[in-house]
């Protein structure tokens, strides 16, 4: 296990630290090079970059699906499997199970009977606005609704950190905007900490308070931008001059990243 637990006093409550993390595949493919990142309680961090910049590799390292070739990933305090919620690019629901059973799954794997956690499951579904669909099967839902189920599932364990790997990339723009708004509303309500992988400048600016811009070949962090606009943010933020300024800045950083890669 690369994840060791250390008790370090810190003025800000940090959750996770990556220190000089390298990941190479087969000795030649440098997927991630020297990535350092500190995730604090309540952060909404976007990893923004072109494809091949190691964003997904970074998430898989944090999720312990991969192990770093070099460097360390440290969780603050005791770390167990319930600390992490994950949303993939596809909804990744079990087609044979109802919506409620899908959301129940992370708790079921920890030995909780449905009866014991029914309220948690329904609460998670209520947060994403799908409490009426608990007995529906995934195939009966639209793409956006499936994604909401996936988000509900990631939150049902009240994780310390939620990883989202381009969750809205496959959705149409209207649905995507709606889900962006709803995700921020959710964040306000439950105060979750999120690392959000995206290749959309607009999405990253609208959602996050920190944007980590990454470049490809080798995957690495180029810049870290702060989006110091207060939450809650709503539709009016999308048309504000501050939003436009942040988008310009992030865009420029992304272009710089792509030039470096080319």
């Amino acid at each position: 296990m690369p994840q060791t637990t250390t008790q370090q006093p810190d003025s800000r409550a940090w959750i996770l630290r990556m220190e000089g993390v390298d990941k190479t595949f087969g000795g030649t493919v440098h997927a991630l090079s020297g990535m350092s990142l500190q995730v604090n309680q309540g952060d909404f961090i976007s990893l923004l970059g072109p494809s091949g910049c190691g964003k997904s590799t970074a998430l898989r390292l944090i999720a312990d699906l991969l192990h770093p070739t070099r460097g360390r990933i440290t969780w603050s305090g005791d770390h167990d499997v319930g600390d992490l919620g994950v949303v993939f690019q596809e909804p990744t629901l079990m087609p044979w199970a109802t919506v409620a059973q899908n959301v129940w799954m992370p708790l079921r794997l920890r030995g909780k009977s449905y009866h014991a956690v029914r309220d948690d499951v329904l609460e998670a579904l209520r947060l994403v606005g799908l409490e009426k669909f608990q007995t529906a099967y995934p195939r009966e839902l639209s793409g956006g609704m499936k994604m909401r189920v996936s988000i509900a599932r990631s939150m049902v364990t009240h994780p310390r950190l939620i990883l989202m790997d381009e969750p809205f990339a496959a959705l149409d723009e209207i649905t995507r905007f709606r889900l962006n708004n709803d995700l921020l509303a959710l964040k306000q309500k439950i105060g979750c900490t999120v690392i959000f992988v995206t290749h959309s400048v607009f999405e990253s600016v609208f959602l996050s308070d920190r944007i980590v811009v990454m470049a490809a070949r080798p995957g690495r962090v180029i810049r870290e931008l702060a989006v110091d606009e207060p939450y809650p943010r709503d539709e009016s933020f999308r048309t504000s001059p501050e939003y436009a300024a942040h988008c310009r800045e992030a865009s420029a950083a992304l272009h710089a990243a792509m030039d470096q890669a080319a």
Partner: protein
Amino acid sequence: MSLVEDPPAGAPDIVDADEVRRARARRIERIGKWLLPVAVLVVMIFLWDRIVVWNAIPHYILPGPGAVFETLIEDRAMLFSALLVTLQITMLALAAAVLGGVGLAILFNQSRWFEMSFYPYAVILQVTPVVAIAPLIMIYVDNRIAALVLCAWLVAFFPILANTTLGLHSADHNLRDLFRIYGATRWQRLRYLQIPSALPYFLAGLRIAGGLSLIGAVVAEFVAGTGGMGSGLAFRILEAGYRLNIARMFAALLLVAGTGVIIFAGLSFLSHMLLRKWHESALKRDR
């Protein structure tokens, strides 16, 4: 799922030419699916009867459909007890194929070593024709029913093994990752992820195995030959052949074919019932 409300009562339905054409095509298909095969059957039986009558073919060469039907009624006691024997062997073989096929598939899935060691032999058993193995089995297995079941099982278990193995490996990769992230045990992964993923594959294998276990039972009976006690349909066909009782051969054949159809239909229905809520293969397309 339509969230649109029905049009208010009394309002005329809006129907365009396309709708009408589609509705008609659906109706024709629904009726035709049953009517056409029945019509073909009637015509064939009629032609069969006429050919026998017009050419004055003797009944020990080709009996007419009427004679076959009469035999079916007259010999019903003997034929149905033979059918029961064959059915018993078929069902035992199918049950053993399900247990053996699924059990082996799970073992293969859980242990790569086990799979590497034994999978080649499962293939060898499958590709060797059962007719060639059956005489040996008859020699070494004393119990006649057990020997027949073993032969039929050899034919039937492989599709279940192969399909279930494929199904257990075909669970969605992201779901696998998710199970890993949530710390699922091997048993939990098998039970909540791999077995449900494998179910459609298993059911497809089961449908094939249903037909194959009947074939296996009949072939094994042929090889076993004379028996007296506990003789199935295949034995009755052989025996009737020796006696030039062609009508009884046809009657027994009819029962074998009917049994095969019923097994297939039953397993298809089972498959539909188990998958209808979620699997693509069992869903009706709306348009």
